[in-house]
């Protein structure tokens, strides 16, 4: 039971830390792409496409963490 409790705790903490990391990453991405779009409005379309792709790449790393947390919960 102790091990299961620790696994649940680890899953919760892991999900939280992964969310912090992904939040910082996507926050920076959004801030700089908005800078770019504001300075060069004619490039806004290109910037949006690139932003979605990079957001997906950042999010992918966070989702790896999410999957590991889910595995911890399900196998605990």
């Amino acid at each position, binding site marked *: 039971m102790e091990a299961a409790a620790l696994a649940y705790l680890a899953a919760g903490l892991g999900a939280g830390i992964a969310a912090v990391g992904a939040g910082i990453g996507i926050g920076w991405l959004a801030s700089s792409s908005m800078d770019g779009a504001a300075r060069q409005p004619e490039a806004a379309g290109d910037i949006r496409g690139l932003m979605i*792709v990079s957001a997906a790449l950042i999010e992918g790393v966070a989702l790896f963490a999410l999957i590991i947390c889910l595995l911890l919960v399900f196998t605990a």
Partner: protein
Amino acid sequence: MIARLRSIAVLGLLALGLTLAVSTSPAQAAAEEGEVTLEGIVNNSILGHATDGYYLNLKPFAQVELPRIMLARTEEGALTVEAYGSTAGLLRNGPYGLQAHDGNGSGDHGQAALKTETAELNEAIGTGEHLHSSVARTSGHVVTDFSISRHLVLSILAFLIVTVIFVTLAQRYERGVGRTEARTFLPYLLSSFFFILVANILGLVPFAGAPTSNLAVTAVLAVMTFVIGLLYGSKDHYMELLTGPPDAPILARIILVPIEIIGLVMRHLALAIRLFANMLGGSLIIFSLLGLIFIMNVIFGEAAAWGSTIISIGFTVFILLVKLLVAFIQAYVFTILSALFIGMSAEEHHYDEDADTSASEGDLESRLDAVEDAIEPTPA
């Protein structure tokens, strides 16, 4: 000829993938209708809906069990294929027993705990427990479970929808409005985009679920991208993959080659995990929000449950709208990244440094001239 071989290879891969998608087993807890406990909520309501299963849940009207097909090895060592109309039929007529479910579920090979008595089985079928526990053969063992699962049915539904829409469109297109040159990879990329889109949107349809919230389905799509990248990979790509960058020293190459290979595999693994986790995550959040009502009921009583119902429903509607957005974004992202990865392996590098630098220098000079012109406008 080569194009035909390639398409045969892709088709074979698809068939392999479908069998993989079929053989994923659901790890679910036993359903207890009526009694509301915390464990019951988490195990049945939340996980049961998000994961795969061997039945279609049309809850207020019916629950349709799907056929089970087992490739099994008998005790004498012969391979047999056994097909039954439903899980209940499998248990009643076949040499199968129900694995008794204990709290932790995995890990033990409890042959002793196998339910095989008719009365026991009838009771389990009556409460619907047989759909949530795993089955095992009483003698011999199951080699592969080829059973038709819910996600397989829904993927075929998505495939049919895409086919019907696009065959109609293609016929109209043949008749000739604005025909452009078809690219090599466009058919695959567009098919995967619309298949993923329809599959994602099926996750928002009542009684259905997203086939893309199954890792096997997304893994097949990622493997298709991977294999297309390998089949159409340029010579330069393979050279760089297997021997490192051409101008790097030997020691650096020893480090770089494994990194390149691992990076190639991880890119495509991340492609599969990204789509899977996005679709699973959305439904998990919705079921967690709805489960919150019942958790409030258990912990704080009925009044708190009524209070949290309003909040939960509001958030659920919001998350559903986000899921609709995510359905489009993830289909787009998968397609764009597939195109990027295929493009990375198919493109041919040209390592002619000298020509490159001189060209950029020339470019720089012309740019400087343009800047000077801009700063000092010629007097008209």
